[in-house]
């Protein structure tokens, strides 16, 4: 969909179909993410963006379709291959997902501790390095419960990048934060891409943040990609559902009186 010159592909999603129970969530999503770009997956609540992210992370198994990360089909590989792949990717979860029984420093150190044979001092230095990057220096001995919302997101980012991953996923990195902190997290994501050359996938519903950081935006609605392109292309899109999302308009609902009555009386529908 873009006119950019061919670049190496980092993530390839092919015709992904997924169900939650009997409910169809993703209706054949195809998506390519190129090396070194920031792709923002945008969409309203219930659009399927969290589900898509969980599939990219290999946390859910799709009904059909393929997900390839760094050339590896994550639903059709050996556990060892998947484990090796996961050392090359970092994930910052929406709520941080820091382990509450460990200090911030231990949280950030965990991937190093589990996957490398570095000595403790080296690991501590690497942790402090990453904490400097996310502007959390000096907080390594606090417990996650003692951190503010913005600090938790920063700590989660630090843990996600401690192994210097090629691929970084951020789930709602600026949701629920005040505008200043939220903007600083956006800057941080841009810095990570520029300084470390990471490929970054960000899931968000915050328009401002999406426009600021994205190289390309993928708009998801009701389990389908309704637009995919550069920030300008998305702004100029003449798709009504895209424009509704951008302008915070509610969808015009065509009223079907019979269906409405059936819903109210609970007789199927």
């Amino acid at each position, binding site marked *: 969909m873009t006119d950019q010159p061919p670049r190496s592909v980092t993530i390839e999603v092919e015709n992904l179909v997924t169900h939650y129970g009997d409910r169809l969530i993703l209706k054949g999503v195809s998506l390519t993410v190129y090396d070194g770009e920031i792709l923002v997956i945008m969409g309203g609540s219930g659009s399927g963006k969290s589900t898509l992210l969980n599939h990219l992370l290999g946390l859910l198994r799709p009904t059909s379709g393929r997900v390839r990360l760094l050339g590896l089909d994550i639903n059709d590989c050996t556990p060892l291959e998947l*484990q090796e*792949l996961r050392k090359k990717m970092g994930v910052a979860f929406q*709520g941080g997902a820091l382990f*509450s029984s460990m200090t911030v420093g231990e949280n950030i150190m965990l991937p190093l501790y589990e996957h490398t044979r570095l000595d403790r001092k080296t690991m501590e230095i690497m942790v402090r390095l990453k904490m400097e990057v996310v502007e959390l220096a000096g907080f390594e001995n606090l417990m996650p419960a003692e951190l503010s919302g913005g600090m938790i997101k920063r700590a989660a980012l630090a843990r996600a990048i401690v192994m210097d991953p090629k691929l970084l996923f951020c789930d709602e990195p600026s949701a629920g934060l005040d505008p200043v902190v939220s903007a600083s997290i956006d800057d941080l994501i841009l810095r990570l891409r520029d300084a470390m050359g990471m490929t970054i996938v960000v899931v968000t519903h915050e328009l401002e943040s999406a426009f600021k950081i994205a190289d390309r935006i993928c708009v998801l609605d009701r389990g389908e990609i309704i637009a995919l392109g550069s920030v300008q292309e998305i702004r100029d899109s003449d798709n009504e559902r895209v424009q509704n999302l951008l302008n915070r308009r509610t969808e015009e609902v065509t009223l079907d009186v019979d269906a409405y009555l059936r819903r109210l009386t609970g007789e199927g529908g």
Partner: protein
Amino acid sequence: MRRLLHLAERVGRATAKGVDELGFGAALFGESLFWLFMGPRRRQPVRVGPIFAQAMEIGIHALPIITVLAVTIGVMLAIQGIYSLRAFGAEQQVVLGIALSLVREFAPLITGILVAGRSGSALAARLGTMRINQEVDALRVMGISPVRFLVVPPLLAMVVMVPALTMWAMLVGLTGAGLYVSAELGMSMGAYYQQVLDVLASNDLLHGFGKSAIFAVLITIVGVVNGALVAGGAEGVGRMTTRSVVHAISAIVITDMIFVFMVTRG
């Protein structure tokens, strides 16, 4: 007719769900053993630190309450034993009853129930909270097996500490009973312990320890299964925690009965 069908459907669904959970539990146990032995080869060894931390919490911190319960039960058994044997004028035989029932039954059972209530529930609550905070997902995407990281340490700690606590419960329970017996029947403690040793065979001790090791596995797996099935926020954690205690205690009592039936009748 319609209600009958409805009932049949509900029973069927509940059964399928129960079998599903049993299978999940068995798979978890298998996977735990896999990581325990194969972990080092996959460069994911089970760490010793968390095992000791869990052993401390499950075992050492439970010592005071186990002591109180075991002494109380020992005294209770002595009182009831002397009362019932008095009918035959056979009070002197009470030591036989106390020693066998404490070592073979009460010590493992009380320890199991107490650990299920104290640590099984805590395990379910911890895993449930971690699950809804996406901490389990975080482990998986870091390439760290949640089973190795979260399940194997408490499992090992339980398998060591529950039999150890059971042994302690046997010792203090027998002593508590002995104090009552010596006061009531004018028997010296030395003579009491001698009688206990005469009565007990190594078979009886094995019976008690064997059961307690099985209880340890049951408590851990039930706690983990219920923690892993948590859905629906804080309320869900509470519900599954309660459920894990009820399930663990039921599993312990039923397994106890089956164990006794299989081992004792032979």
